[in-house]
């Protein structure tokens, strides 16, 4: 596992470097009263965005999901810049980049019944298209992919997410050693 760290161009190293730089920047913006709940919440949001953005940037535009993430983040920040000019009382509980939408339980119930005949490959195939709808909502950019691309992108997305979690955990553990 540690041999990966020695490779400076690995995804993990690229993500770690970017994310750390973002964390340092976020930390530098610390105001005097740094532990009010609102401050902490805003920092939480910034950290989460930084993490997702760092990973998407490390993947660059090689993947549909990373492109979709970067696009979404950019349009979100553009919106926020526009609205901050108006000084409206928008509570910054905006949706984070990875909104967890409600699942279509109706669909799932239907599919569970259908795929009780697991031997039928063809039935499985058609049933998959419907089941994939739930997956489309979870993978950035998933709405516009065909099933093959969706499955392929999902595999890569999961690999990157697990790397992201791994690194964030390590950093949190190191910080909490103080």
């Amino acid at each position, binding site marked *: 596992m540690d041999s990966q760290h020695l490779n400076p161009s690995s995804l993990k190293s690229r993500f770690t*470097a970017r994310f750390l730089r973002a964390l340092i920047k976020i930390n530098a913006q*610390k105001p005097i009263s740094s532990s009010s709940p609102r401050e902490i*919440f805003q920092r939480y949001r910034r*950290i989460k965005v930084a993490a997702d953005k760092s990973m998407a940037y490390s993947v660059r535009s090689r993947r549909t999901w990373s492109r979709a993430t970067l696009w979404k983040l950019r349009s979100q920040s553009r919106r926020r810049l526009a609205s901050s000019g108006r000084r409206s009382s928008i509570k910054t509980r905006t949706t984070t980049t990875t909104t967890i939408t409600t699942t279509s339980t109706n669909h799932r119930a239907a599919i569970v019944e259908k795929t009780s005949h697991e031997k039928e490959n063809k039935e499985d195939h058609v049933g998959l298209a419907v089941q994939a709808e739930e997956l489309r909502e979870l993978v950035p950019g998933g709405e516009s992919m065909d099933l093959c691309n969706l499955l392929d992108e999902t595999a890569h997305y999961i690999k990157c997410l697990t790397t992201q979690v791994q690194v964030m955990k390590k950093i949190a553990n190191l910080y909490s050693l103080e």
Partner: protein
Amino acid sequence: MSSRRSRSRQSGASRITDDQIIDLVSKLQQLIPELRGRRPDKVSASKVLQETCNYIRSLHREVDGLSDRLSQLLASTDTDSDQAAIIRSLLM
């Protein structure tokens, strides 16, 4: 042989075969801790997709939780560039 017929079911222009889907699904299965050990032919594609969704959701939750934890840690510690340099050297 049955893979040819599946083409007509696809509304898109791509010719997706059953074999391709099976390959991709089994590749996904290997990534999910819940299903990793099991034989691919024992796990239905539908189950793989379902577990994939659950797994992605749990990963999202982990990211949320870790972001939260980091925001608290940043608030409590007075980290300066020294510590950041140490962390960087440890992780690289």
